[in-house]
């Protein structure tokens, strides 16, 4: 069996396999609004490779982190907007 880690998404604990990016974990958990655009639209990942910046969330208090470039780690706090 794969090893699992727990990340906390908007206060809700979420178990995911090691090696999962935060973007994948959020989408799997049903999150579709990763961030709000400058005119208020809900946005989710586009490029999956770190260039489009659509998947930005707050990770462990740091704003504007690209969730597709970040692996889930135990106890990680993720905030969507």
């Amino acid at each position, binding site marked *: 069996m794969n090893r699992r880690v727990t990340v906390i998404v908007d206060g809700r604990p979420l178990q995911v396999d090691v090696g999962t990016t935060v973007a994948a974990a959020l989408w799997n958990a049903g999150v579709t609004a990763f961030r709000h655009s400058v005119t208020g639209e809900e946005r989710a990942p586009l490029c999956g490779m770190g260039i489009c910046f659509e998947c930005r969330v707050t990770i462990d208090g740091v*704003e*504007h982190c690209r969730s597709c470039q970040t692996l889930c780690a135990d106890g990680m706090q993720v905030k969507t907007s």
Partner: protein
Amino acid sequence: MLGDPGMSRRSADVVVVGGGIVGAACAYECAAGGLSVMVIEESVVGGGATAAGMGHIVVMDDSEAQFQLTSLSEKMWNERVGAMPAGVEHLPCGTLWVAADEEEMAEVRRKQAFYEARGVPVEVLDRRQLEEAEPHLRKDMAGGLLVPGDSVVYPPVAVSWMLRECGATVVSGLGVITLRDGGVTLSDGEVIQAGVVVNAAGAKAVRLTPGIPVAPRKGHLVITDRYPGFVRHQLIELGYLKSAHSSSGDSVAFNAQPRKTGQVLIGSSRQYGVEHSGVDRPILSRMLRRAAEYMPEITGLTAIRTWTGFRAATPDKLPLIGPVPGTQREWLATGHEGLGITTSLGTGRLLADQILKRTPPIPVEPYLPGRCMHE
């Protein structure tokens, strides 16, 4: 490009060379005075120093003449900005001059007296009030001076608005290669006749009017991603008085500006004698270290871009507005150093008043090119 190349010779009452904010403001005022105006821009309008500048509209106190021009201009900005499109990003955030220690607090009080004597509302902040006003500043600052009437804009959109509003003919993508008393020649060979030619080519003005005392002074800026509320006022350190930001060597000073977008614009640096427009890492690094001394948490923000620009500096820090000595129809509107966004509107007004022989709202003599140029 506007106009029909097959047409006979083109002409205008006023031909403005340079579609930066100064050229646009001159065009706007001349057109408002009933003159036909053509603006020639070799690149894109609003793309020179105007696109590089911070867009801080500020009343300054270096000299009486500087005060008069900046305060006239700020009034004009306040009257006009309401009509401009949202893209001008007008933010009435005020300027907060930050004093790090007691010595700089003395400067706060000097400034306070200067502004109050001239009817500019200001407010002295003590340590605690400063901390409340700007929570991300280092806690041991001595205080500051708030000038609430100052503001911030995004200049390129103001340029395109002024040019559109005033109905000037804009020729872009073609440069002026020679400029004479009464006409210009474009890079494609076309000669355009003008009642008056205004050289508003910014730091490049000296190429067209040799001998004017204007030197390029390079500056660096950094913009961050959006962090609404991180900085609330246009912040400027008063320490530059000690760090000799005004002398001729390279220098940096803490300058942080809130943008309407929530971004933070970080400055500033000044370098003489540098021609290349690339980012100089060592001076950028010094500039950001200075910013971090004032706002330690600024190092944790994400920077999305850096850039440079050239200010057109004059020896007495005042712009050149008026005819070139010995000519009637060749005029200058350049030399605005680090204040040209602010002073563009006043410049346009003083220039048009002189051309149209109207009475200007403030004396023009301190800005006449004749003060530092001779026939």
